[in-house]
């Protein structure tokens, strides 16, 4: 039997990293007896190891709980968790499309941050009701009243009556539950109308196959029903419907307004599309639900298996990750140094790191990664225009009429004492100052236009370290601008190594070429012969360093009859060699390709 819509509340939690979103979700689950205290491992919704270790949420996750309100009625809450990092705006917009409301958590010691702001605007744009919550009021440095004022000033919603809580201790979390009932509107939908269900996430379960996380807007879905994907036209039979408690639990049906999952013997990962509308094959809806902001990859890098034989494993792993992560893109590429691999596109640098880490951890792969790049727009002398995401595909200088690079509108929020230091970073990164204003006496919001390729590596880290962790940062793509860019190549013993090529601004090319050549000399092990390491722009050598030849590799004396130990060393040496990449005559360790980045 369908649960009455007026007793359902579907909502997300929006918060900046570390402002306590996952902890609040945990407390809500506890206080609604969704999860027994003894089963609580900290931050239950963050089920990936990486999420828990880094203290961030990457994937949306959904959970159903039941809350008995002061009016005596039992409400069904569907909480859809959202990531807080700028890279994952896309996932946020997906989660929000499935909700009627959003709980905004703001840290009373920090105030509103740039990314929170971006996500709140997303929620408001999606027509969601926002429930402000002020967290961490138990900390001595908490300033709840000032934070409430800031929310009112910056976002423009009433916040002085917002629950002031400590998610950590559980203080006043009941007020949040209550506010959700009172502020978030119940879903509207007709359980008897033709089925429309929005797929807002999917997950590959080893037993059940691909699970689609859905929000049912109209109609009902149950086991045995034939459903149709409105994006692909493919039809499937539903093998199970269920909800997250937070472990998946089968239920008889999901009706209009509810959130849960559908398993439908979908074998190929490519058949499930996040953002798709699912309808009934027999009584199809006339039109799909509105999609949401599509995410486009902005950062690209080459990912190769350290052992060429693992190419197939890498492809399967990417296929599987793609199922959980629609924003990941990849296509096959080959490199003279690295062999067969993939050019992968990511939403941002954190996204890139997380995918690499998941590939290595969850799929046990050893990877070689090349320096990240952005998409450049090239106008050839022949008049043709082209987009290039791999520096090694850049045509020769004589064929290029003009080069354009992507630039972003960046918002930085910071305590005013760090303004000078942060402006310096932006200047160093070729930033163009737009404006600056005080959101309150000691907090500043700055706008800059920055080339994307200047922020894809360690910009965020720099920002954090030069503001003692207080500054926050958000960006959106502004468009393309003409720029004086050159391709910087590296030659090892005379052979060009394509995987090391990067595109840089001409003013920086010399310094960067020299720095990278020096770095390469540190990381390339000495070999039997001397290796010249050269940096070149369009065939002109701009820097040269030398890796000197190895003189001795056998220093140990043989240990008292322990021959196995020596043999193990030799085997390790052989293994190490296998993992080296051959560029012409030179063996290069896998991490050389990333080390190019670690240059100041």
């Amino acid at each position, binding site marked *: 039997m369908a649960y009455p819509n007026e007793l359902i509340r579907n909502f997300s939690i929006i918060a900046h990293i570390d402002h306590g979103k996952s902890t609040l979700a945990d407390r809500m689950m506890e206080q609604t007896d969704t999860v027994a205290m003894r089963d609580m491992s900290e931050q239950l919704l963050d089920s990936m190891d990486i999420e828990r270790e880094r203290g961030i949420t990457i994937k949306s996750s959904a959970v159903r709980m039941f809350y008995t309100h002061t009016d005596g009625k039992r409400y069904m809450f569907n909480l859809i968790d959202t990531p807080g990092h700028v890279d994952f705006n896309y996932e946020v917009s997906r989660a929000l499309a499935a909700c009627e409301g959003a709980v905004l958590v703001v840290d009373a010691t920090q105030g509103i941050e740039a990314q929170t702001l971006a996500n709140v605007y997303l929620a408001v744009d999606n027509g969601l009701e926002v429930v402000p919550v002020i967290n961490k009021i138990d900390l001595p440095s908490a300033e709840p009243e000032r934070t409430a004022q800031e929310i009112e000033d910056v976002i423009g919603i009433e916040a002085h009556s917002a629950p002031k809580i400590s998610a950590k201790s559980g203080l006043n979390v009941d007020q949040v539950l209550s506010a959700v009932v009172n502020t978030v509107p119940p879903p509207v939908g007709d359980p008897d109308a033709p089925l429309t269900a929005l797929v807002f996430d999917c997950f590959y379960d080893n037993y059940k196959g691909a699970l689609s996380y859905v929000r049912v807007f109209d109609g009902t879905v149950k086991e045995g029903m034939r459903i149709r994907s409105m994006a692909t036209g493919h039809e499937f039979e539903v093998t199970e419907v269920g909800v997250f408690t937070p472990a998946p639990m089968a239920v008889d049906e999901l009706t209009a307004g509810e959130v849960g999952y559908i398993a439908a013997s979908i074998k190929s990962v490519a058949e499930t599309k996040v953002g798709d509308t699912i309808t009934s094959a027999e009584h199809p809806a006339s039109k799909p639900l509105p999609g949401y902001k599509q995410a486009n990859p902005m950062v690209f890098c080459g990912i190769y298996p350290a052992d060429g034989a693992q190419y197939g494993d890498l492809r399967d792993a990417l296929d599987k990750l793609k199922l959980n992560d629609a924003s990941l893109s990849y296509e096959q590429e080959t490199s003279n140094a690295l062999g067969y691999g993939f050019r992968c596109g990511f939403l941002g640098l954190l996204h890139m790191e997380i995918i690499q880490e998941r590939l290595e951890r969850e799929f046990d792969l050893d990877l070689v990664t090349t320096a990240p790049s952005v998409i450049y727009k090239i106008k050839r002398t022949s008049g043709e225009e082209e987009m290039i995401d791999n520096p090694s595909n850049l045509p020769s200088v004589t064929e290029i009429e003009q080069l354009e690079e992507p630039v972003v509108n960046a918002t930085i929020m910071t305590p005013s004492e760090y303004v000078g230091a942060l402006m310096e970073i932006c200047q160093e990164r070729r930033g163009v100052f737009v404006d600056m204003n005080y959101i309150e006496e000691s907090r500043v919001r700055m706008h800059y236009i920055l080339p994307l390729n200047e922020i894809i590596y360690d910009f965020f880290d720099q920002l954090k370290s030069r503001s003692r962790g207080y500054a926050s940062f958000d960006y959106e793509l502004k468009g393309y601008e003409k720029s004086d860019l050159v391709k910087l190549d590296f030659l090892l013993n005379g052979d060009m190594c394509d995987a090391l090529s990067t595109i840089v601004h001409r003013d920086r090319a010399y310094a960067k070429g020299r720095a990278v050549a020096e770095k390469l000399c540190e990381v390339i092990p000495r070999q*039997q012969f001397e290796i010249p390491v050269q940096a070149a722009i369009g065939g002109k050598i701009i820097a040269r360093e030398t890796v000197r030849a190895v003189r*001795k590799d056998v*220093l140990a004396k043989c240990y008292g009859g*322990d021959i196995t130990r020596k043999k193990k060393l030799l085997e390790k040496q052989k293994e190490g060699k296998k993992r080296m990449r051959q560029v012409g005559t030179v063996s290069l360790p896998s991490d050389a390709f990333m080390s190019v980045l670690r240059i100041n």
Partner: protein
Amino acid sequence: MAGIYLHIPFCVRKCAYCDFVSFAEGCVPEGYVEALLTELELVARGGGYPAAFDTVFFGGGTPSLLSGAQMKTILDALRVHFAIRADAEISMECNPGTVSPEKLAAYRAAGINRLSIGLQSTHDVLLNEIGRIHHFAQFLETLSSARAAGFDNINVDLMHGLPNQTLEQYLDSLKTVCDLGVQHISAYSLILEEHTPLYFRVEKGEVALPDEDTVADMQDAGIEYLEQRGYHRYEISNFAQDGFECRHNRNYWDNGEYLGFGIAAHAAVRQGRWTRFANVDSLDEYYRLLARGKRPLAETIRLTQRDEMFECVMLGLRLVRGVERARFFARFELDIAEAYPLAMEKLRKRGWVIETEQAIALNSKGLDLQNEALGFFM
């Protein structure tokens, strides 16, 4: 040729660079000596070892922590259980600062006829840096006591590549030791092993090791100097006056048979197939197994002929003389050059090999890059 190795895993204090199995104790516990005796008996009873032995070697740790009486007990038991040839080379490692003239005399009386003294450097600053317990002056006392006790076959260990060590200091150490007229010198490089105190200090930047080139210079200059002084290089890091090569170690490099006793000791014997044994490396485990009448083995590896062949190459190519063709042929009924045609080709191409009718050997360049050369054979 066949040898016996006994491991005495106790030291006054562990050196900063040491990752051998050893424990800081002022003496060797009686329990350990008793356990060794039990192990000797067990192995002797089990059979499957060579009929007679040409060498015995006490290594450590610090074997010179054994009292004269303990040493006599062990050697007597050895002779009861195994046939030790009358002319056998019976060596022990000995650290300055752990022996008295009386103790050395007792060792000699018990049958020890070769001493290997762990000097490492003649410079007290350097000795202190690597955590050795002795001063150079103590070494001099030990050496003269040893001679007075009748030892006339003495090795001295020296190291290069020590923290802050200069080439001049190293050559000075070599000169001092040559002047003292010992018969044998082991000159090896400091290997920075992980998980040692020195490793952590280097990681933290508290001490600096000489760079790769300086270490290579030290080694090259050392080899040249020792040859000049009549110590010929017969193995990568071993030098001897004529007739004083260490027979026990020679047996390892010839891939001969040997037994090993004590924790973490290794053995290799032919029991049908070529077989290697490794003892457990924990004292508790060692005592526990022996108390139950079991051999304290951690690992038994039966090798394929191909593996055995590779070991012969790996060990034999450490010797300046190289792998003897006749010996190799007698063992495998195959000439070494025929067994490894591709590897031989690579060696020739690099110009690292000396081929004669008697042996296949690496020249000095090949010895410098022996690991790379061995890679060809894998």
